[in-house]
Structure formats: C-alpha cells, structure tokens
C-alpha cells in the first residue's frame, strides 16, 4: 500500500512543479533583440576591461568596437517588425495543462502496470538471511549457516546442520565437504562416520569410494553392529565385485533385523539384485511352491493380493521410496497403468522436497513410458 502512496507523491510533485509556469498570465520576458544586445553589451564591457588592462592594442580595440557596434546595429534593425514578446493567452495553456495532468500519470501508470511487479518485496541479501527462519526460507537459512561458519569455522554443530541441508537441495558435493569438516573437528561417533561415508557415496553418485569405505570401516570399528555402516560396507564389497561375500554380509544384516525394521526393504532389494531368484522378495518358499502349481489366473490373483498388501502398507507409511517404485513396477506388470501413475504421483507427493527421490521417480516414469509430472 505504501508503495502506491510513494508513487502518488512522486507524481503529484512532478505535476505541481512542471505545470507551475503554465499559470503564468503575464509575459515578463524580454524581446529577442534584447538578448542579442545583452551579449554584445557584455562583449563591449569585456573589450573595455581588456583595453584597460593593456591586453589589447588601441588599434585592435578600436576595430573590435566598430565590429561590435555594427552587429548591435544589425541586431537592432533585424527584428523590429517581429512582436517583442510572446502571447500569454490562457486558452491553449488550459488544454495543455489538462492533457499533462491526465497524460503524465497515465503514461507512467500504464507502463508500470504492464512492466512493474508491485507484489514483490525487496530482498536485500543480509535482510533475507536474517529473516530466513521467520520466512521459512530454506535457501536463506543455508546462507545464514554459511555466513555463521565463515566466521566460526570451528563450529561442529554448524557443519552438522549444513550438511543435511545441502543434501536436501541436492548439493551433494557440498554436503560431503561439510561432513568432512564436522568429522575433522570432532571426535566422531559411529553415526557421524557413517553419515560422512553416506555423504561421500551420494556425492559420488552411489559409488562407495575408498574414502567412504574407510569411513564405514571406522564406524564399524567403534560399533560393529551399526546397521547402516554394515549395509554400506556390504555395498562396497559388492561394488568391488565380490558378490558372494556381499551377499553373505547382506544376509547377515537381514537375519539380525527386526521384522518391522524399515530398512529391511533396502537390504532385500540388494539381495534381490545379486540373486535374481529372489526377485519377488515377498514370496516365501512355500508361496513359491504353491504358485508353481497354480494356473496363470490364480497366480496373477496371488500377485495382485500381495501388491495390494504392499499398497496398504505404503498408505500407512509413505516414507518408503523403494516400496512405491516396486508398487508402480508391479502395477505395470499387472497392466494397471492408472494405478501405476497414481502410485508414482503419491510417491512424488511424499518426497516432494527430496531432489534425489524425485529424480528416481522421474526415471521410473520414463522407464515405464508414463507421462511426466510437473512436480519432478
């Protein structure tokens, strides 16, 4: 609102100032001739000064004076017929005044409504960073922590806040760098080592680099039962090509995992990738046996039942990306394209702040030939 008050004041000031001379009724301006004569008189005075100071010879001064005199005479004679001053009639002034009164604001305001963005506030950087928490401005908060850390680079807590923030907006390299600082500045716990390792893996696009592996090994040294560290260690072993050993490690983790643990999925999936037989992880041996004897229709029925079970579980707890992707996959196999789209849409909704997850959902769409969604 105050913006429009400023605009109004500016416009009013401009109009008042600019239109003022139009109110002038009477001419008080000298004629054209007078201006020429004033200049010549000035030049004469200057000549006189120069002559008095001895800057110009008597003869030269005389000649110059004659020349100026001739010009003055010419100027005097030149315009005797012309009117000496202009008209001061009010009629055209009124029209001009009215036109300007409407025209100037109209031009400025029309242009502003087309080009301006009165809805946008200023966003000076300092201010933005200071108000980041208030405005729930995630990028601003990151900058705030960055600024804090630039001054206090020894603040472990700061680095620990910054790293997951970077990760959330997909800046994985910076996340890994922040974690490295945190590790270097503190006495790392197994969890910290693991998080550092995971950040390195994300920065390397899923590859467990040797640095990352070292981090996981350090975590396991401190706590050999740290599940996540175990998982990544197994992944490292797998990526090095020793699938047998990797499989053994994954199975060992799974064995110890409680039935309700959320991470079972991730491990089962890894096992499935190594062991193609275990592709339908939800099928137990007995189910497999019975499925073998079933007709195609019955088998589809059983699969559908299992898929519905998965869908039900995801409806209760949606924070399972792998689950959603598997569900969409199964729906496509069953030929239920609409439900596959719905599953991916729900997944995108659940993970709307996670750039990495959105990318995978998008990949799944491309893989199944489904239309893309604007969210990803």
């Amino acid at each position, binding site marked *: 609102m105050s913006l429009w008050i400023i605009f109004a004041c500016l416009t009013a000031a401009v109009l008042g100032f600019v239109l003022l001379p139009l109110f002038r009724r009477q001419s008080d301006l000298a004629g054209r001739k007078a201006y020429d004569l*004033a*200049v010549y008189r000035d030049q004469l005075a200057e000549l006189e000064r120069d002559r008095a100071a001895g800057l110009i010879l008597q003869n030269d001064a005389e000649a110059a004076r004659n020349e100026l005199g001739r010009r003055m005479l010419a100027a005097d004679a030149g315009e005797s017929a012309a009117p000496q001053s202009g008209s001061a009639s009010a009629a055209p002034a009124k029209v001009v005044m009215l036109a300007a009164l409407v025209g100037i604001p109209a031009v400025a305001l029309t242009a502003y409504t087309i080009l*301006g963005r009165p809805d*946008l506030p200023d966003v000076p950087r300092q201010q933005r960073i200071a108000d980041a928490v208030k405005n729930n401005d995630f990028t601003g908060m990151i900058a705030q922590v960055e600024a804090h850390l630039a001054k206090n680079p020894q603040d472990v807590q700061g680095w620990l806040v910054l790293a997951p923030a970077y990760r959330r907006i997909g800046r994985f390299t910076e996340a890994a760098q922040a974690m490295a600082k945190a590790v270097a500045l503190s006495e790392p716990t197994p969890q910290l080592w693991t998080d550092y390792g995971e950040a390195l893996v994300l920065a390397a696009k899923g590859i467990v680099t040797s640095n990352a592996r070292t981090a996981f090994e350090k975590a396991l040294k401190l706590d050999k039962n740290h599940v996540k560290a175990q998982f990544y260690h197994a992944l490292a072993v797998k990526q090095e090509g020793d699938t047998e050993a990797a499989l053994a490690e994954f199975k060992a983790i799974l064995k110890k995992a409680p039935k309700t643990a959320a991470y079972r999925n991730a491990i089962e999936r890894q096992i499935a990738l190594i062991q193609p037989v275990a592709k339908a992880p939800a099928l137990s041996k007995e189910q497999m046996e019975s499925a073998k004897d079933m007709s195609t229709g019955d088998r589809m029925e059983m699969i559908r039942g299992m898929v519905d079970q998965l869908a039900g579980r995801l409806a209760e707890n949606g924070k399972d990306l792998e689950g959603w992707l598997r569900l969409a996959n199964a729906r496509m196999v069953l030929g239920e394209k609409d439900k596959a789209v719905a599953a991916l849409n729900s997944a995108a909704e659940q993970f709307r702040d996670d750039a990495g997850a959105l990318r995978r959902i998008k990949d799944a769409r491309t893989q199944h030939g489904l239309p893309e969604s604007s969210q990803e």
Partner: protein
Amino acid sequence: MIAETGHFALLLAFAVAIYQFAVPLYGAHIRHDGMMATAVPAAVMQFLLLCLSFACLTWLFVTSDFSVHNVWANSHSAKPMIYKISGVWGNHEGSMLLWVLILALFGALVAAFSGNLPPGLKARVLAVQSSISAAFLLFLVLSSNPFNRVDPAPIEGNGLNPILQDPALAFHPPFLYAGYVGLSVAFSFAIAALIEGRVDAAWARWVRPWTLAAWMFLTVGIAMGSWWAYYELGWGGWWFWDPVENASFMPWLVAGALLHSAIVVEKRNALKIWTILLAILAFSLSLVGTFLVRSGVLTSVHAFAVDPERGVFILAILCVFIGGALTLYAWRAPTLKTGGLFAPISREGALVVNNLLLTASCAAVFIGTLYPLALEAVTSQKISVGPPYFNLTFGPIILPLLMLVPIGPLLSWKRGDLWGALQRLWVAALLAAIFAVIALVWQFGGPWLAPLGIALGVWMVVGALVDTANRIQLFRKPLNVSWSRLKGLPGQAFGMMLAHLGVGVMVIGIVAITAWREEVITVLKPNESLQMAGTTVTFLGETPLTGPNYTAEVGRFDVSIGGTKITTLTSEKRVFQPSRQPTTEVGLHAFWTGDLYVVMGDADTSGGRTVRAYFNPLVHFIWLGAIIMSFGAIVSLFDRRYRVGAPKRTRAPAPQPAE
C-alpha cells in the same frame, strides 16, 4: 519497495520527457511564454527522477538484492563495496541508465545556467534534448529494463566481469558517457537553430562551453581507458586502434574541430553553417559509438543477431536522429545568414585548416573502423584493419595539423602575417632542433624519424609558451608588467596554451614509446634474471594469495641497477570466483625516463615462468599530456566571459495587447 520505486521513477521520467519534448516545442511555435518556460522545471524534474531511479538501482546493488535480475546477473555478495557500486554501470542495462541520467543532467544544466538564452531558443534546445532522452528511455524500458525482477530470488549473484574490477575502469565509463552525452547539448543547440532559422549571438556564445565540457570529459575518459588498457591487459601497449577505442576517438576528433570552429562563430560571426554541421556530426558519432559498443556489433557482426531487439532499437534511434538532423540541415541551412569575410591566411583560415584536417582524420578512422564491419555484413569475409592502416592514413593527416598548431594562435583575425608569426616562433624552432640533435645522439641508430618526432613535440610545447610570452610581452616590458599582464590573461588564452602544450607533451610520449621501447620475452626460473634498459630484473619466485573474491599466484621480481637494489615488483595472475576467469596484474616501476613493466605469464613445463618485460620510455607523457589538455579545458570553461548577464526584463514599451 526500493526496486519498484526506482522502476516507477524511471517510467515517470519517460512521461516527463515526452512532456518536455512536446509542450515547449509547441509553445515556442505559437510563442506562448508559459509553455516555453515549462521546459525548465521539466528538465530539472526529469533529472531528479532519473537520479532517484539511479540511486535506487545503486542501493539494490549495494544491498545485493538478487530479486532484481540485473543485480543477480552482474553482482556478487563477496565483491568489495566499490565494485558493487561500479557494478551498477558495469553492465548493459545500468550503463544505459547512466547514459540517460547524464543526458538529463546536461538538460538540467542547460536549464539552470542559460538565463541569458532567448526563451524560444532555450525551449527548443530543451525540447530537442528531451526527445533524445525520450527515445533512449523507451529503449531502456522496453529492451533493457534494469528493474526486471526474479521470483523467487536467488541467494547469490553471478558476479561482475573480473576484468572490470579495477579502479580506472570503474570510473572510465561515467567520464566517457559525460563526454558522449555532453555533445548532445551542441546537437540540441544546432537543431534548435535550424528550427528557428537563425543563429543568435547567444547561440554562438553557448555552443562552445558545452562542447568544451564534453570534450574535456571525453579526453579524461579516453585517457583513463588507455591507462587501464596499459596496466591491466598486460600487453604493454597503450592504444590498439581497437574499434571500441575508435568509437570514442571519433567524436573526440570532431568535438575538437567543433570547439575551434565555434570560436570563429563567436568572434567573427562566420562559419555558422559549418559549425552546425559539425555539432550534428559530433553527436551522431557519439550515437554511432554507443551503438557499436552496446549492440554487440563489434565483437562480431553475427553477435548482432543474437540480441537483434537491442541492436535494431538503437539502430532505429540512430537513423531517426542522424537522418532527421541531416535532413533538417539540408532543408534549413541555406536559409541561415552567413557573415564575416576573411583572407586565407588569418586566424579564421588557420581554424578552417584545423577543422578540415581534424574531420579528415576522423573520416580515416571511421573508414578503418566500419569498413571491416560492412564487409563482414555483406560478404561475411572477415578482415582486420590494424595499426598499419591507421599509421598510413591517420598519421599523414594529423602530422601537418600538429606542425601548424603553434602558428595558428599567432595569426591575427581577418588578415594574418604568416612570416611575422614564423619569426616569433624562432625560439621554438631552435629548441626543437636542439632536442632533435640530443635525441639523435642519445639513441643513435634508432629509427631516423624519431628525433624529428621529438622535435615536433618540442616545437608544439615551446610554441604554446611563445604565444603566451608574446601576449604578456615577456622580456620586452619589465617583468612586473609582464606579471600583471599574465594575471589579467583571460582563462580562454590560458586554456588554449595548456591544451596545445598538452598535445605537444603527448606527442613526445607517443614518439618515445613507439620508437624506443625495449621488450624482452623469456622463461625465468626462480633466481634467474634478465637484463633490460640498464636494469637487472631477477625473478624471486611465486607465492599463492587469496583475495576477497579471487585467488592469485604472485610473482616477485627484484629490480637492481649495477648491483644496487631499486625496488621489488610483483605481478599477479588472478583467477576470479565464481567465473574462474583469469586476469593479470602488471608490475610497474616508474623511473623518470619511463616505465619498467613486468608481466608474469604462464608456467613453463620446466618449472619456470614466461616473463615479459618492457621498458616504455617517457610513456607517462601520454597521460600527462591528456591531463594538461583537460586542465586547459577546465581553465577555459571558467573564463569570465561565460558569465554573461541576462538582459534586463523590460515591461514591454509597446502598447499592451488589447484584451
């Protein structure tokens, strides 16, 4: 709110510019005093609004408000404050805003300082001035709006081109623009005179100071640009006949011609039509310069196609103003009265020669700059016109002019005595000959033309002093008489002496660096050294350095003469964040005989560094000359003659119009 206020002020200024163009012009046509007078507050208001707009943009840059597209694209929060501010005009949009701001400033100055202009002329001058403003404001608003917003706002900006992060370049554009745009006043005066069909005495008196001011700013701007190119680009040269440089040099040459021909108009009431043409040409060349630099035509004709909107827009403005002005000239100039006869050998004659040679030299530069562009546009064949062309064309035209400079002021008006003038210059001739011999002995075996070049410079410097000595009758009258005459000397005479002397000083510098520069390019490992102009330059080694927004390798060099250490020079290779663009910082040591110039180049595979070292004799004379010239212009501007009083306001003695 600040961003939007700046934007609105800009748009309001556009509306005022249209008003200032239309109403006073109509008022002058129907001789309506009020409408004519309204040009003055409109000009002031237009300037204030653009000031506000510019201040807002500056504030946005200072506070790093990246919700403004222009700030985001050209600034960075880690930049030092001075470059945040200079970043305002370090980009296309901001520099165009500065352009119109200075245009409005000149309009406001004309409004404020020309109480003695006839009201009709004043109204028309301000109207024409405002038509230029309106056209450029339209261009700014539609195709290069500096207040466009980004939503949501990014948290960090892209940064200013690091090559522009330099003090000389930070202030080079404002001066250059003040020069370019200052010529718009002479242009507006010329167009107003053509519309009126008459040239008043006041007209003649007022064109010159405005041209002089513009010329002074151009001189400073060009000198700054050349000084920057000298120490920042690291090529050791000071002028490259680069099209961007030529774009500023051409208006400078024509403005130089204009301020000389304006003297003839003022003193002798002659050369009026020619002066009006020069005024039109001078500003037209400024517009061409702006077009060349701003449209991207210069980088390549094809870059023009990348952003055709802007290029075509400026081209259209160019066509309207230059074409319109020349058409008006062809139509109206024959109606102007000419006056003032003079013999060929006279002060007027000398000034005509000056004008012809200056415009001819400008034509040579113009062809050399635009021919390659035209050729590329028509046949897409790329040629480059370099120093050899300019040395062969510009040189022979400008040399006779330089030789004639000391003679002109000694000729009298109407009918001059050439032999008498030459006789009075015997001291200058003698000293020139002596210096030529000294140069020949000192640098025996150098280019044979160089001593003659030095002689030319000395001839000009001493010639300028001889003229002044003559005016104060030095050695012919007692010293105290001469002293009092010196004190009473008008500013204009002083200014002329300084300007001509400055050209002479510059000529000496140019000749010296062109003929006697020494250059060594070699690879140095730490503690190795090179010999240069009697000094030993030893490479000490390099160390890393972190600046506010760059990282650098700093090479250190010891300079010694005969085992005595003189100084330590540093030369840097900087890499700027976030663009990773490299720049060089030159190590310079100024001896009284010239500059020692050391540049550390790229690393060699053997662990050494390529090092380029130059000795540039008397190179300071080039910029010293430019400073003296602009100082001369300032002195001349403060001449008391320009403080002409306004005519006494007469209550019209004629019978009052019946109402």
